């Protein structure tokens, strides 16, 4: 039944690349952000938490629309890029990568935040008093004790980006090899009434998503973060 053509493979490869880079960037951004949120002294905390969670409630078209405005040739960001001789980011891989990072942010921040909250400050205070500096503390205490949180954050970011559609359609359009990811390709097939091809890819995504969630939930059970 599964016969994947060149268009399909191109879309799969593009989707994997997009998800991979999104996940890497998100882990780099979300870790300090979640740490800051969990330390909870600043009065900006609640506002930042709300902004991070926005993609959960906003229609993807709204996010896509504002990103198109900002990243496009006349937008605040796109325009500045043009003026220094670069190209704007609408309808480009970099553009949808940026959108994916914002769109999947809550899925990286939330598990890390929970994991950091249940870790508490004590292990960090202990390791600092024993002479470990910030980087040492991260690798010798936070990472091993919040391993579950990091795995869940990475998996959810990756999987959620696979499922991204509205934002990409608004901002990236449907350029093969550049912005035509799996979800967009399925949409295109359905539009042109090629139900068999659409079904094939849809089923692939369904199976993948189930697998990911299965993995996440079993990890969540096995890696209860220990509170000391």
């Amino acid at each position: 039944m599964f016969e994947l053509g060149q268009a399909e493979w191109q879309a799969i490869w593009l989707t994997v690349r997009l998800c991979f880079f999104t996940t890497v960037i998100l882990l780099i951004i979300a870790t300090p952000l979640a740490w800051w949120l969990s330390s909870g002294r600043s009065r900006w905390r609640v506002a930042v938490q709300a902004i991070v969670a926005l993609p959960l409630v906003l229609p993807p078209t709204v996010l896509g629309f504002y990103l198109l405005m900002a990243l496009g040739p006349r937008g605040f960001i796109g325009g500045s890029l043009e003026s220094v001789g670069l190209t704007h980011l609408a309808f480009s891989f970099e553009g949808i990568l940026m959108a994916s990072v914002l769109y999947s942010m809550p899925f990286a921040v939330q598990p890390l935040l929970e994991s950091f909250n249940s870790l508490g400050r004590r292990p960090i205070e202990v390791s600092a008093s024993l002479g470990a500096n910030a980087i040492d503390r991260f690798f010798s205490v936070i990472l091993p004790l919040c391993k579950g949180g990091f795995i869940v954050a990475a998996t959810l970011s990756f999987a959620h980006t696979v499922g991204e559609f509205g934002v990409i359609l608004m901002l990236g359009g449907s350029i093969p090899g550049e912005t035509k990811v799996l979800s967009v390709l399925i949409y295109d097939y359905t539009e042109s009434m090629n139900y068999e091809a659409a079904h094939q890819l849809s089923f692939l995504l369904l199976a993948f998503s189930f697998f990911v969630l299965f993995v996440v939930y079993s990890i969540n059970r096995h890696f209860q973060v220990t509170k000391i």
Partner: protein
Amino acid sequence: MSTAMLQISANLQRGDFTLDVNVTWPLTGVTALFGRSGCGKTTLLRMIAGLEKVSDAQVTFAGAAWQNARQFVPVEKRRVGLVFQEASLLPHLSVTGNLLYGYQRTPDALRRLQPDAVIRMLGLETLLERRVDQLSGGQAQRVALGRALLSSPQLLLLDEPLAALDTQTKRDIMPFLSRLASESAVPIVLITHSPEEVQRLADRVVFMRDGAIDEICDLQQAMARPDSPLFADEGPATVLTGVLSDTDEQGVRSFGVEHARLFVQTSSSEVGQQPSPMTNTRLRVLARDVSVALDDPERISIRNHLQVVIQQIHELPDNRLLLTTRLADGQHLLIEITRWSARQLGLQTGQTVWALIKSVALVR
């Protein structure tokens, strides 16, 4: 060379909580921060550790500015050993992993304690390969103490290290703490609200109340006042310090100098089977365990008779009197008797009498 000092000043207002301190004490022996919960002890300790960044505060350790208007030395640079109420062991490491965590991060030149010595001192030999969740509360706390010591700290900060343990475990771990206090040569700051822990361990007491320092004095002074907060639990008591001799055939050890000598019946389990003789040991005598005689009674089961001079007589509630007396070696001994018996014996200040001590406890 003058003694190194620890100096802290801070003025902090956080909601209902205020902390207003400016205090200095020498970096020797054990300094107890004593007071009710919520009086600011923990905040003070966290400031010393560098875990609490109180603005406009100053912390100076042996002449080095740990915190002032211009700089804040981070906790990992202060080299302080921390032990909390909960053992707070790192759960992903074994006992050995925990013990060596700080040791491995201490430069060779600064290492003053070796793992073997600390493991022996705290009786950890049989626990080394265990996972930390297989330890009892008392064992975990001993590992936490060892871990702190092995980072060769310049200062050991103990935040109610025994408060979360049950009575029996407390009794088991106390000898180790006593040993730490007398052997480790690291200055210790101990937070406690237990008068017993102060009497056993402290050399100096900082009395705190409502975010302020009431008084700072050495243990002898703190226990000289008849209304001392340290007498809240068990009534007035005296802590005598001196040299404890070898055990004789009957299991009796003598303590102190001639004319002020006491005899102690020891059980082998006490004070962690230390080699004897021991210097700088402490005996605790409850004032109500001491009686007064005008002559030295010879045919009596009480074996500890000391000649003392009455220096002061204080009135206590319920028709009781507290006598402050002086031993031949200059140390003081508190004696609690009834007003009625004092009148019968005609006791007055300046008089020489015999103190009959019914029981003493070797506390350190």
